[in-house]
């Protein structure tokens, strides 16, 4: 018996995507276009083609000529930018999508977790949903029965197990969903981004569970944006870029390749330069010092900026943090806040800023970067130099997400000591 459990050769997937041509304000023209589209759709239906709601159709290869093999017991990370084809690859491997070209050979029972809680129904109770979800993931009834108590224990929602799911908080829902998934026992497992849920403590438990699975000799293909998790869980990494496999090898190499492609993307963006200085690149760093686009509230906030300077003394590096509505929410100036200016020796410098942890609301943020000369004249300005997202923000231990969109600002105020509430002296006097 061969030791290869997954063999993909020349794998490709083509999608048809539609574009809308620019809308014209002329009523007549719009009507003509609509009529033309209707005729085209009717023709598509008669020929049995899929309908696409758009004016122009383009072919798009989400995956192209991908070859790789996975051996028994191997755990492999698939990393790449958004739209690199990671999810498409997993969907093909898990038989949801049919490949356009190439073939895949699989040996062993396969389970895929493209999201957790697939098929969960809000009207059914937690107990009922465990059986439903288990069956959907391919578990047999007796398997679910045998593991039922483990699943409930792991989720920590035993009190609400007979409550309809619609009464669950988002966090409880995620816990229950992950617990079912965590107890799948198949030879091959595909996992997509499911760790991006729950609070920090639960995420850690999920990671532990993942490494248990990995150590149990099963083959796992793991898609994640969480580079730290990828590095911790896997020894081999596959990097996808625009649908092509650009790297397949040790995870360190894969991460380096991925980061390099991130940086390359930055340089391609060309930020120009000022008269006396140039901001070359800027990144938000994760705990391992790798560039990231997500920030977890309350964790160290590290920024790294590369600048080129000239002989002009007293240049200040300034940061302006903006929220999703572009409203300024924070500011830092090296000259005025730290009394440090950029060196006046011409050259390229790397500035590292370790900000104190911020408890930011979940949502999108960006930094505008400027270099200012002494006379408060902007020398080089890069808007949106760093953009990042806070996926979830929970200042407490109950399930809650403090969102930008709530309109309560962007910073969760945190207490230095526990909240004290006691009868007021004045109240007693009256």
């Amino acid at each position: 018996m061969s030791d290869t459990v997954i063999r993909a050769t020349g794998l490709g997937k083509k999608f048809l995507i539609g574009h809308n041509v620019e809308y014209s304000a002329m009523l007549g023209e719009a009507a003509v276009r609509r009529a033309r589209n209707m005729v085209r759709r009717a023709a598509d239906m008669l020929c049995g083609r899929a309908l696409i709601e758009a004016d122009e159709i383009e072919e798009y290869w989400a995956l192209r000529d991908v070859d790789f093999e996975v051996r028994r017991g191997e755990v492999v990370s698939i990393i790449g930018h958004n739209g690199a084809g990671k999810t498409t690859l997993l969907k093909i491997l898990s038989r949801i999508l049919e490949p356009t070209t190439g073939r895949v050979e699989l040996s062993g029972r396969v389970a895929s977790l493209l999201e957790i809680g697939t098929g969960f129904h809000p009207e059914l109770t937690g107990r009922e949903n465990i059986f439903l979800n288990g069956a959907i993931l391919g578990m047999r009834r007796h398997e679910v029965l045998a593991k039922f108590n483990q699943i409930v224990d792991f989720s920590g929602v035993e009190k609400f197990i007979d409550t309809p799911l619609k009464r669950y908080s988002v966090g409880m829902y995620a816990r229950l969903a992950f617990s079912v998934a965590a107890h799948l026992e198949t030879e091959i497992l595909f996992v997509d981004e499911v760790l991006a849920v729950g609070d920090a403590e639960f995420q850690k438990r999920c990671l532990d569970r993942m490494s248990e699975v990995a150590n149990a000799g099963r083959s796992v293909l793991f898609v994640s944006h969480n580079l730290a998790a990828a590095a911790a869980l896997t020894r081999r990494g596959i990097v996808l870029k625009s649908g092509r496999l650009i790297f397949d090898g040790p995870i360190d190499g894969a991460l380096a390749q991925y980061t390099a492609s991130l940086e390359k993307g930055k340089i391609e963006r060309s930020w120009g330069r000022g008269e006396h200085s140039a901001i070359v690149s800027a990144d938000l760093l994760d705990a391992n010092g790798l560039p990231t686009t997500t920030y977890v509230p309350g964790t160290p906030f590290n920024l790294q900026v590369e600048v080129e300077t000239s002989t002009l003394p007293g240049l200040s590096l300034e940061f302006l943090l903006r929220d999703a509505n572009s409203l300024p929410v924070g500011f830092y100036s090296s000259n005025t806040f730290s009394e440090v200016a950029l060196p006046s020796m011409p050259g390229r410098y790397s500035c590292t800023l370790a900000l104190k942890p911020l408890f930011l609301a979940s949502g999108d943020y960006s930094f505008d970067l400027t270099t200012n000369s002494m006379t408060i004249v902007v020398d080089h300005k890069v808007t949106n130099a760093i953009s990042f997202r806070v996926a979830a923000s929970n200042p407490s231990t109950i399930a809650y997400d403090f969102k930008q969109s709530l309109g309560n600002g962007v910073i969760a105020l945190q207490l230095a000591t526990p909240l004290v509430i006691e009868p007021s002296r004045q109240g007693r006097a009256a």
Partner: protein
Amino acid sequence: MNDWPSERLILEAGRADRRYWGDLWRYRELFFILAWRDVALRYKQTVIGLAWAFVRPFMTMVVFTVIFGHIAKLPTEGTAPYAVLVLAGLLPWTLVSSIFSDGANSVLGNSQLVSKVYFPRLIIPLAPVIVGLIDFVVSLVILFGVMAWYGMAPGWHILLLPVFIALAVLVAIGPAMWAAATIVKYRDFRFVIPFVIQIGLYVSPVGFSAKIVPPGWQLLYSLNPMVGVIDGFRWAILGGESPLFLPGFALSLVVTAGMLWLGIRTFRHTERGFADVI
């Protein structure tokens, strides 16, 4: 877990999956659990719950008996009370139309599953069969109640009723599978289905006896497979009062088999592309 194959599985464009029917059997638990889900959800947050399965056919029976039997004064079959004639047609009609309409919308309704996990998709349009059958069994109680009210006892013919129930299910699932697969791609058909069911109610002998169709037209009328199913039901329930028109019944069987073949074929051909277009 042992009947899960660990043999090689090959995924390729346009490749027919030889193991499909085996997979269908292996996923039988999912089939039952999806059916169970639909049953469990059907009467959630209703006051009278399962009683709806009684109320609906009963009220329809009353309305049809009054309109067709008393106002239009259509003839019954033999000496059977008109209400029993109507119920014997209404029961299979409700069974078929509910399986057809639930089945037709089922794949689209479960799009979340289709785009996230693999299982033989044929399970989805088949699950409504169970839901339909449960409602059917409940309304069978009404039928026997009404027959007892009129002092009628079923003859030996009733033993063949399960055969006609199976036939009714087969009549429904062919078009249901075809429509389920087609609706995924062309949602226009979602608007067509209720219309088809409405027309079907009037072109099928639900509120009246198929015997009122002139003899020369009987064979043509039997092209509608519901004619065979309803005639079969009336034969099984009313016994000798309602003799079966055999050539017509045979024709209904042929049409049913044809629709079943078309349904499975269409579904199997489009199934692999569901996740692309849903």
